[in-house]
C-alpha cells in the first residue's frame, strides 16, 4: 500500500516496521511529529514517551537497548547538545538491541536558535551517520540503521533536515518485523560500566569499528552510484541530492546514505570515472573535507554552495547548469508578517507589564520569546533551553547591589522549559544566594511545538494518567521561601505589576507563577470585546499589546480602534491598558 507521508511520519513507520519497542523524545521543531506519530498510530506495538529533556530521553533509550529491544530517540539538532553526554559514552558501551538517535537539523533556522550541522556529531562521537533524501528512504534507511547498530555494536546517528522531516512524498508501506522481547536481563559489567579500566580498551575497538564501517560502506544499500554523463560527477546526500538531481538528471551521481564514515574505495572509484568531482551539500563542508583528506581533487564544493542557510533548487541549478533562470522582480516594501502571540495568549499581559516596568528580562525558548519583537521589545536575551534563570543569576551577581529597580533582572520561562532544565538553574540561584525574580508562565502545555503534554499535566504521551508535578510545591521544596512564591492571573495586569514590584524589591529569590492555559491548545474563547467609537480617541495604546484582533479604522475624527470578534477571545488585556474605558465586552 502507498501513502503520502512526511519524513517524520515515515520515520515513525520505519520504527514500527523495524520492530522497535521503545521510543522517547523531547519535542522540538522539526523533529516533533516522529514521537507524536509513534505515540498515536503505533501505540499498540511501541512503548513511547515524552521525556523532560533530550538527555533523559536518550538515557532511557540506552537502558531499553541494554535490556535488548530496538530503541529510538528523537530530537532537534540543539537537543543533541543536551544529550551529548550519554551519546558520547554510549558510543563506548555499544548496544544490545539496536539504538538509533534521530536528529532533525534546521538549516536556515526556521524555528531554532542556531543552525549547527549535526553531522559533525557523528565524527566527534565516532558513530555511523545515516541520511535519507525523501520519505521512502527515511523509512527504509531507518530499518537499515537498526541493522547497522546491531551488526557493528554502535549507536547510529540518523540525521534529517527540515526539508526531509517536513516534506511529504509517496511511501510504500511494509510489515512489522516481529522481534521477541528478551526473557531475562543479561549482565555484562565490562561492556556497560564505563570505569576507566573498562572504558580504556573500548577506544581502540571504536577505531576498528570505524574502519569496518568504512569498508561496509562500499557495498551498503545506503550508498548508490548512478552513472550517466561522465563529464560531471556529483557527490551528494539528503536534500542536496534532490536539488542536484533535479538540475542535472543525466549527470553521474555518488549518492551517499552513509555519510560518516564515507566509503573510501567507492569514492576513489567514482572519482576515477568522472572528469570532475562536485560536492553538493548544505551547511558545513562535511563530505568535502572527508573526500579531500583522501587526496581526491574536488573541483567545486563550498566555493559554489554557501556554508550558511538552506540550499534552494534554483541556486543549485544555477551553479550546476551555469544558466540563470528568468525571474520577475519581487514586490518591494511589503509589510512583513512575523509570527505573533495568538489573540488571548497568556503571555501578552505579562510582557505588557514587563515593558512598563523596564526591568531587564532574561528569556527562554518558547512562544514567549516573541516578547523580544516589536512592539514589546521586553525580552532582552535568549540563549538556550533553561538559560533564562541561570543567565539572570549571573547578571545579578555581576551587577552586585543595585538601587534602581530597572537594573533588576526577571527570568521568563515556560512550564515545559522549566521542567526541561530550568529546575537545576533555580537550584543554583537558591544555593548561591541569588535574588532574581523567576516568572514561570505555566500554560499547561509545550505550546511552541504544537501542544505536547508536560510533567505538570498528569498525562503521558500515550494518554495514561500520571502524577502531575506541582511547580509551586516543587520550588518551595527546593528552598524558595513560601512567601516569595506568588501565583498571579495572567490576565490581571494590576496584580502582575504589584506582585512583580514587591518581589523585585526583595533581596532573595522569588518565583511568580501564572497558570492560565494556552488558548490555542485548550481552545479558550470568552465573550469578545468591542470598541466604543465615541469613547475611543485613537491613541493607539491598545495596539501596543500586539494582537491581530485589533486594528485602526476610519480617518480623521472618525478614526478609532476596532476589534475583530472572530479573532478576539475576550482576554481583556487591551481593555486594561485603555485609559478611556473604550473597550468593553460585547453585549
Amino acid at each position: 500500500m502507498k501513502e503520502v507521508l512526511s519524513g517524520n511520519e515515515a520515520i515513525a513507520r520505519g520504527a514500527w516496521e523495524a520492530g522497535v519497542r521503545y521510543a522517547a523524545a523531547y519535542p522540538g521543531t522539526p523533529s516533533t511529529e516522529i514521537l507524536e506519530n509513534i505515540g498515536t498510530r503505533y501505540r499498540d506495538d511501541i512503548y513511547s514517551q515524552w521525556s523532560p529533556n533530550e538527555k533523559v530521553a536518550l538515557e532511557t533509550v540506552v537502558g531499553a537497548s541494554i535490556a535488548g529491544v530496538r530503541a529510538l530517540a528523537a530530537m532537534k539538532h540543539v537537543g543533541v547538545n543536551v544529550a551529548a553526554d550519554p551519546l558520547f559514552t554510549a558510543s563506548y558501551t555499544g548496544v544490545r538491541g539496536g539504538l538509533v538517535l534521530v536528529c532533525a537539523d534546521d538549516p536556515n533556522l526556521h524555528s531554532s536558535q542556531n543552525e549547527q550541522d549535526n553531522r559533525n556529531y557523528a565524527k566527534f562521537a565516532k558513530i555511523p551517520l545515516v541520511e535519507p533524501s525523501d520519505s521512502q528512504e527515511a523509512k527504509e534507511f531507518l530499518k537499515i540503521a537498526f541493522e547497522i547498530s546491531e551488526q557493528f555494536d554502535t549507536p547510529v546517528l540518523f540525521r534529517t533536515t527540515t526539508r526531509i522531516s517536513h516534506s511529504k512524498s509517496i511511501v510504500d508501506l511494509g510489515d512489522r518485523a516481529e522481534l521477541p522481547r528478551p526473557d531475562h536481563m543479561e549482565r555484562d559489567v565490562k561492556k556497560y560500566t564505563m570505569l576507566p579500566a573498562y572504558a580504556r580498551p573500548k577506544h581502540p575497538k571504536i577505531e576498528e569499528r570505524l574502519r569496518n564501517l568504512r569498508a561496509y560502506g562500499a557495498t551498503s544499500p545506503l550508498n548508490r552510484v548512478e552513472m550517466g554523463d561522465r563529464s560531471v560527477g556529483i557527490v551528494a546526500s539528503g536534500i542536496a541530492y534532490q536539488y542536484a538531481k533535479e538540475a542535472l538528471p543525466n549527470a553521474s551521481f555518488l549518492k551517499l546514505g552513509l555519510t560518516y564514515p564515507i566509503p573510501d574505495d567507492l569514492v576513489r572509484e567514482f572519482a576515477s570515472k568522472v572528469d570532475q568531482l562536485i560536492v553538493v551539500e548544505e551547511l558545513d563542508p562535511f563530505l568535502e573535507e572527508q573526500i579531500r583528506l583522501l587526496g581526491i581533487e574536488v573541483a567545486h564544493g563550498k566555493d559554489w554552495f554557501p556554508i550558511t542557510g538552506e540550499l534552494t533548487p534554483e541556486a543549485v541549478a544555477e551553479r550546476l547548469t551555469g544558466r540563470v533562470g528568468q525571474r520577475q522582480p519581487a514586490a518591494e516594501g511589503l509589510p512583513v508578517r512575523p509570527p505573533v502571540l495568538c489573540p488571548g495568549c497568556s503571555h501578552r499581559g505579562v510582557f505588557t507589564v514587563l515593558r512598563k516596568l523596564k526591568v531587564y528580562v532574561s528569556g527562554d525558548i518558547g512562544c514567549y520569546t516573541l516578547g523580544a519583537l516589536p512592539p514589546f521589545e521586553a525580552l532582552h536575551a535568549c540563549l538556550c533551553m533553561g538559560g533564562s534563570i541561570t543567565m539572570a543569576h549571573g547578571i545579578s551577581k555581576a551587577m552586585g547591589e543595585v538601587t534602581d529597580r530597572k537594573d533588576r533582572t526577571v527570568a521568563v520561562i515556560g512550564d515545559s522549559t522549566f521542567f526541561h532544565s530550568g529546575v537545576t538553574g533555580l537550584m543554583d540561584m537558591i544555593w548561591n544566594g541569588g535574588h532574581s525574580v523567576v516568572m514561570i508562565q505555566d500554560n499547561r502545555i509545550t505550546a511552541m511545538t504544537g501542544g505536547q503534554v508536560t510533567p505538570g499535566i498528569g498525562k503521558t504521551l500515550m494518554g495514561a494518567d500520571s502524577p502531575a508535578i506541582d511547580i509551586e510545591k516543587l520550588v518551595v521544596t527546593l528552598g524558595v521561601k513560601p512567601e516569595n512564591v506568588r501565583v498571579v492571573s495572567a490576565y490581571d495586569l494590576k496584580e502582575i505589576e504589584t506582585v512583580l514590584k514587591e518581589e523585585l524589591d526583595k533581596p532573595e529569590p522569588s518565583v511568580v507563577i501564572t497558570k492560565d492555559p494556552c488558548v490555542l491548545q485548550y481552545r479558550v474563547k470568552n465573550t469578545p470585546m468591542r470598541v466604543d467609537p465615541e469613547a475611543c480617541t485613537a491613541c493607539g495604546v491598545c495596539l501596543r499589546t500586539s494582537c491581530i484582533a485589533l486594528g485602526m479604522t476610519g480617518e480623521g475624527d472618525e478614526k478609532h480602534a476596532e476589534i475583530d470578534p472572530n479573532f478576539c477571545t475576550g482576554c481583556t488585556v487591551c481593555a486594561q491598558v485603555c485609559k478611556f474605558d473604550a473597550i468593553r465586552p460585547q453585549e
Partner: protein
Amino acid sequence: MKTVNLLLSGVGGQGVILASAILSRAALLQGLDIKQSEVHGMSQRGGSVVSHVRVGEKVHSPLVAEGGCDILLGFEPLEALRFAHWVRKGGTIVYTPDRVNPSTVSAGLAEYPDDVEERLRTYPVNLVRVEAAALAERAGNRRAANVVLVGAASRYLDFPLEVWEKAVEGSVPPKVRDVNREAFRLGREA
C-alpha cells in the same frame, strides 16, 4: 505529464496545509509522483505560510524553484503579491481579495498597502480573482475558503472530477464533507 509546480501562500490558520493535502491526494489517486513541503512550527501564530506542491511522473526536489512556479494560490492578497515573482512568465495566479492584517499593521508599525491588486496585475501571468470567502460562506462555512481556492486551481490540472471529489472527501472530517464538496464546486465554477 510534465511536472506541475504549485505554491500556496497565506497566513497561519487559513488552511493552507489542508489545501496542500487535497492537491497531493488527488495526484496520488491519479497515479502521479508527489512532493509537498511546508515549514511549520510557528505557522499557527499568524505568520506567513507557504507550501510547495509538485506533481508529475518523477519529482525530485520538494521545493518549487523561484521563477518556476506554474500556479500560485494566494489565500490572502498581500501573501499572493509576496510570492508573485515565483511564478513563471505565462503561469497562473489564483487569489482571493480577502485581507488579513499582519500583526505589524495591527500594532500600527506598518500600513497595509492599498495597491496590492494593481501590483499583482503588473506580473506577466494569467491572474484569476476568486471571492473565496464569499463563496465559502455560500457553501455554508467561511472557513472553507481554502477549498474554494483548490476548486479554482483544479481547472488548471487535468484530473477527472471524480478524482478531485474523492480527494476532497478523503481529506476533511465527515461532518464538514458536504460544505467542502460544495465549496470545491463553487471554486471550480468560479
